[in-house]
């Protein structure tokens, strides 16, 4: 029997009194205790605090003050600062770091009455596509524990897929929510850049980072987004745009809606079975009344190189604050300032993080800035223009989320280029700042693959609507790994 439940279901059960937050929280904590050693999806489990929060939520529900999320347990990616609890960002640098404050996302979801079960594993500083760069070890894919769940939000994805948490937060800089969602067979949603406050989210690449969710359904993503989205004066890049009723938008008909499928997504690379899964998904959309149309994103090929200039450039600067002076790891045997910096950063960061810092430092340095950083900014502009041109004709863009299903742990670790190419379908969305969602659309070699839906800026409601309508006609998102059926006692 399935041990997974959506938060829509849990919320209803909480409000009609058939369960309590404490009961749910204890159940998920027990599942984590029993099953997570096979997944390594959590870095920190916050049992005591969770139970206290659950009791508070139950009191709130009993008083009739509960909202749609009150009492529902969740897991936060360990990139969100949480006061009183470790926030490691998957790095030795922050192995013992306790943030003195809560991130905006943490604050908002706590205010909604959600109960934090713990902090999930991730690629170090969100730099990676396989969760193998974490200082706390790789996360295993619940569908096949020899395989990666993807990254960087791999812990969040694995935990939700295996039913260790009904929902988890994630962040997506180049695909870090959508790719692991695809590889673990769940729904991953990244809203428009600026839709959710970045305050308290440890920065990787500030112009690309965006918080989102890993859930079982698009409806759950809508429920979460309703609480997470909105202006926050503490983040200057946070949008002032009003937040529509996402859940209400889910039921809109797709009749006559136009879906653009970029031909560049199918230019090679995708295998025949994978391609067929996507064609099947498009057929479902057509049966819902949508019209499929081929479109072109001519500059898409530039997205990976562009991203791997912009993101490292920003990260090389963002990570300068980790110098061993004020917080985090500090090398013990430094005798002078220079040595303190060098040894702290040499030992505190893992190799992928250092590779990106080096790349970023290089592309920003005198004599190379114009050739790399400035060119990349121009390419980014072209990529964004490609998308906006398409959205003059179509309501949504659809395609694959990843080039392949989950790969084996270690398979690409020593080949950064192969690893980077894994983000080829997701990265353009970040460069253009658009909302994107991955929903399960079938299996390739018995492993889940995702359908990616991309909306125009602030088109969250449209993306969630399409995904929900698709999920109402299919059950791929309800397929679960055997691990999810195991009962913890």
């Amino acid at each position, binding site marked *: 029997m399935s041990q997974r439940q959506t938060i829509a279901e849990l919320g209803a059960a909480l409000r009609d009194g058939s369960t309590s937050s404490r009961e749910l929280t204890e159940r998920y904590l027990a599942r984590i205790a029993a099953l997570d050693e096979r997944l390594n999806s959590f870095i920190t489990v916050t049992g005591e605090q969770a139970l206290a929060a659950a009791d508070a939520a139950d009191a709130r529900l009993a008083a009739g003050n509960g909202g749609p999320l009150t009492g529902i347990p969740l897991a936060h990616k360990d990139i*969100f*600062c949480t006061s009183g609890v470790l*926030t490691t*960002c998957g790095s030795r640098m*922050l192995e013992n*770091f306790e*943030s*003195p*404050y809560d*991130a905006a996302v943490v604050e908002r979801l706590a205010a909604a009455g959600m109960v934090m079960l713990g902090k999930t594993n991730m690629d170090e500083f969100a730099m990676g596509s396989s969760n193998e760069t974490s200082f706390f070890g790789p996360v295993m894919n619940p569908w096949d524990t020899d395989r990666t769940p993807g990254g960087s939000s791999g812990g969040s994805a694995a935990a939700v897929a295996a039913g260790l948490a009904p929902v988890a937060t994630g962040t997506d800089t180049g695909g870090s929510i959508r790719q692991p969602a695809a590889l673990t067979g769940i729904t991953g949603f990244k809203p428009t850049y600026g839709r959710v406050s*970045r*305050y*308290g*989210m*440890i*920065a990787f*690449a*500030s*112009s690309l980072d965006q918080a989102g969710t890993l859930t079982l359904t698009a409806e759950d993503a809508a429920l979460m987004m309703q609480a997470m989205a909105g202006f926050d*004066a*503490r*983040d*200057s*890049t946070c949008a002032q745009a009003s937040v529509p009723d996402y859940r209400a938008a889910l039921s809109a008909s797709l009749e006559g809606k136009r879906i653009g499928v970029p031909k560049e997504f199918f230019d090679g690379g995708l295998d025949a079975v994978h391609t067929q899964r996507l064609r099947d998904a498009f057929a479902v959309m057509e049966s819902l009344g949508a019209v499929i149309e081929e479109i072109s994103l001519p500059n898409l090929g530039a997205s990976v190189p562009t991203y791997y200039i912009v993101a490292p*450039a*920003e990260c*090389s*600067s963002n*990570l*300068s*604050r*980790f*110098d061993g*002076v*004020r*917080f*985090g790891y500090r090398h013990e045997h430094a005798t002078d*300032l220079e040595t303190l*910096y060098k040894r702290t950063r040499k030992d505190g960061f893992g190799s992928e993080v250092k590779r990106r810092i080096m790349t970023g*430092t290089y592309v*920003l*340095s*005198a004599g190379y*800035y114009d050739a790399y*950083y400035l060119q990349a900014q121009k390419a980014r502009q072209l990529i964004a223009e490609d998308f906006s041109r398409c959205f003059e004709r179509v309501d949504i863009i659809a395609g694959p989320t990843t080039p392949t299903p989950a790969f084996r742990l270690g398979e690409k670790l020593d080949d950064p280029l192969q690893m980077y190419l894994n983000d080829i379908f997701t990265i353009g969305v970040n460069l253009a700042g658009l909302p994107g969602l991955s929903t399960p659309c079938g299996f390739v070699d018995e492993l889940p693959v995702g359908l990616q839906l991309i909306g125009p800026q602030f088109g969250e409601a449209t993306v969630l609507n399409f995904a929900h309508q698709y999920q109402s006609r299919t059950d791929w998102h309800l397929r679960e790994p055997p691990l999810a059926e195991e009962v913890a006692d």
Partner: protein
Amino acid sequence: MPWETVIGLEIHTQLATRSKIFSGASTAYGAAPNTQACLVDLGYPGVLPVLNLAAVEMAVRFGLAIDAEIAPRSVFARKNYFYPDLPKGYQISQYELPIVGAGHISIVLEDGTEKTIGVTRAHLEEDAGKSVHENFDNATGIDLNRAGTPLLEIVSEPDLRSAKEAIAYMRKIHQLVRYIGISDGNMQEGSFRCDANVSVRPLGQAKLGTRAELKNLNSFRFVERAINIEVERQIGVIEDGGDVVQETRLYDSDRDETRSMRSKEEANDYRYFPDPDLLPVEIDADFLERARKLLPELPDAKRERFTAQYGLKQDDVTILTGNRDTADFYERLVAELGGGDSRLAANWVIGELLAALNRDGLEIEASKVSAEALAGLLRRIGDNTISGKIAKDVFEAMWQGEGTADAIIERRSLKQISDSGELEKIVAQVIADNPEQVQQYRDGKTKVLGFLVGQAMKATQGKANPGQVNQLLRDKLA
């Protein structure tokens, strides 16, 4: 060979905002170390900068005051380098697109002629913290109270031709930023600092010589010393057949020398790029209009008006308009006096008042005698209640907190004796007591009259109306 000195200044002025440029922490000076540094100033993981619009408004006000172009869109960039007092590992500054573009300001040279100095640009940036070397054994302390304090960096064109011109320009900027209320200009507290780019070239040569950048110039005197020493050094190097190298030099006021800090080759590559955490600053017409309204009368305009309106000497106008508070004090005083006596008022402000302030080390806004109280005193001079000389004593008593001019005059019975009956008796007594001098006067030595007046004043402890005494004596001795 005659040499020409070429100088450009970079002035860092701390803006008088209450909170920091990107955080809500206080900017007040002198708090215990690290008590005015919030998580943003400390560069904690996950925190983000939020621009303080008051700093933007002040920068715009400065731009308007020097008739500069205000950029409709300016951009904050990150200047990356590692230093313990720079918590984020980068300083947020403006690089390619500063908020204030080209403007100008005029200075008065020693010979009285005016010269216009170009201002290349002025940009907003955050200050770093401070490294504290005292009180730490074999270690350095870090105080981040100053980290994130808003600065306006004002960069001049290389239009200055001597240390004296540089000082005149610096003083003019100093006066201006205080006038328009964007900085307290306090140099001891580091609110107004300066770096100087100095080079020399043979007189008449168009091409600029290689420059050295002088750092750590935190007083007008040091700027002048450092530039003069550096000019001599550069001329010496060239005349000895050497080349000046482009470098940063530190002025050491203890040894009165400049010495090399780092050469061009050793200079940091700051890897500037636009800060993705901040949106471009967009200034629209409304914002400009609001800033313009906050602009007070500027120093040059005030000078002209004072000269015309109050009929004062140039030197007096210079002193009275040197800063806004002095000018305001003066104008309040004159207004209290009903517009007349503007010269008497000027003499008193420049004389007794500034001397007393100087003596007690006070700013004029902290004056122990207000403009209203001083007007009360000057009125008593005007209506002959007391003499100017007695007034100085009354002023001193007022300064010591003994009350209003009238109260002091009353209490000390300082009112001039103008009653002719009483004065006649005194004059008669003086004539009787000094027969020798009286005879001399009658013999035509009229100068002796002063002595006789003095005797009458002495007899009344200065309270006799000197004019009346004078007249009475003349009449009696005629």
